[in-house]
């Protein structure tokens, strides 16, 4: 063992070296990409000024609000419905697949694999693949969101069950309770808060993602965004973005309140 004094000096040198390495990676990659750091950064304020001028909602775009609002509600509904259906499917699969409640280790590995597959295909890829079969419709968006959400929630639910329900499960098993009694009386009540918390989080996420999917499937707020954008009506685009931001923030505040109550 080196002396504590030497150790601290060594640690200091190590940290300096790491920062130097990160810095040189930046310089190297800028050189490869022909990226001029200086003009890159000075362009930022200009870009924002341009955005501010062009995307600022005008009185004309305010008139579009009812239409934007209607499409937004459609999008939120899409996000909520796909997440709720995904949560129900994921709960069943997670119970079958978790180490604590599952059938066996093979099923556990297979379920993990399936969840990872659904999760790791990007949402945009899901939407584009599904477009072939289901054309441009709300259902395509619903399915794309559903599949990705199922992937995330299976993984999350399995871990929640293993972390939070194992001990109470053992206690109920010891009383002579049967498998389904243990699931309904111990596992479900025990994991419910974490479960709801995850579902709320996915709803927040899916409202954002549903906008993106809508651009591809030609539905919801994404469609409107795309339409205004491609017809150079930037003020209307700005209005749409503003509306989306407000709805997302409202949803976040709402779900935080729900969390506070249930946890």
């Amino acid at each position: 063992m080196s002396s504590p004094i030497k150790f601290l000096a060594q640690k200091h040198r190590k940290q300096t070296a790491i920062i130097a390495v990160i810095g040189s990676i930046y310089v190297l990659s800028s050189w490869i990409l022909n990226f001029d750091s200086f003009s890159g950064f000075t362009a930022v304020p200009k870009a924002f000024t341009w955005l501010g001028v062009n995307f600022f909602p005008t009185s004309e775009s305010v008139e579009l609000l009812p239409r934007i609002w209607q499409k937004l509600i459609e999008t939120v509904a899409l996000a909520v419905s796909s997440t709720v259906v995904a949560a129900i499917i994921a709960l069943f699969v997670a119970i079958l697949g978790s180490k604590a409640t599952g059938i066996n280790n093979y099923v556990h590995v297979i379920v993990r694999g399936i969840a990872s597959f659904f999760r790791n295909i990007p949402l945009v890829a899901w939407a584009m693949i599904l477009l072939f079969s289901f054309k441009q419709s709300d259902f395509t968006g619903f399915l794309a969101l559903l599949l990705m959400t199922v992937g995330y929630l299976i993984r999350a639910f399995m871990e929640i069950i293993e972390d939070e329900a194992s001990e109470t499960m053992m206690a109920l098993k010891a009383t002579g309770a049967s498998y389904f009694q243990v699931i309904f009386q111990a596992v479900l009540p025990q994991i419910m808060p974490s479960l709801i918390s995850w579902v709320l989080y996915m709803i927040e996420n899916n409202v954002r993602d549903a906008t993106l999917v809508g651009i591809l499937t030609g539905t919801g707020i994404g469609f409107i965004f795309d339409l205004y954008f491609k017809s150079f009506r930037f003020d209307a685009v700005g209005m749409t973005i503003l509306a989306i931001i407000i709805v997302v923030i409202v949803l976040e505040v709402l779900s935080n309140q729900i969390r506070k109550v249930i946890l």
Partner: protein
Amino acid sequence: MLEVKHLTKSYQKDKPALTDISFSVEPGNFLAIIGPSGAGKTTILRSLNQLIKDDDGQILLDGSDIRSDNKAQLRKHRRQIGMVFQNYNLVERLTVIENVLHGRLGYKSTLAGMFGIYSEEEKKEALELLDKVGLKDFALQRCSELSGGQKQRVGIARSLIQHPKVILCDEPIASLDPASSHTVMHLLKQLTIEFNIICVANLHQINLAKKYADRIVGIRQGKLVFDEESSMLSEEILETLYDQTISKELE
């Protein structure tokens, strides 16, 4: 009567966790199992209701072997064996009375149990037992709001409503402060006599084991090294059991 004969278990090959453990307990008796951490106390206790499957031996409850049970028989045996845990293992989000009633699940049809449908008598009994463990006014509180000692008493009520022949206690007071520890130990002792049940408890507190248990079994490296009336527990035995002098504990 609970008889354990030649119980053997190893988690890894050639590394026995338990070797040839035999002891027996009569109804109305409190048996404490003591020994260092990792000696195999929990393995013994969890073998007794087959939460851990042991490798060989016999576990006889009133003459019938739990080890040779099929699923349905094991369920019937388990409902006669209550269990109390170090971490209480209650469903924290449910109310006290719901947790007590969980002790009845082994007697219910799957559907009635799944949806928590209990008879009036069962509910009344749950309240009586809560009165007995001193939690009469807590029936409708959420378990997460209780203190450690109160949670453990809910755990005891849950095991009592099973009408058990045996109560297994896995480190029942390891997470409790000294005052609650005495309350819980006193309660266990008193209930053992009152309901004429067999109580088997893993304990780290030698002084409490000596005070409350009728008999003490000492386990060291998976082997039974001591099985006597609790008054026979001496410093020399503790020294061999724990590999060090801990005479202070006995005061």
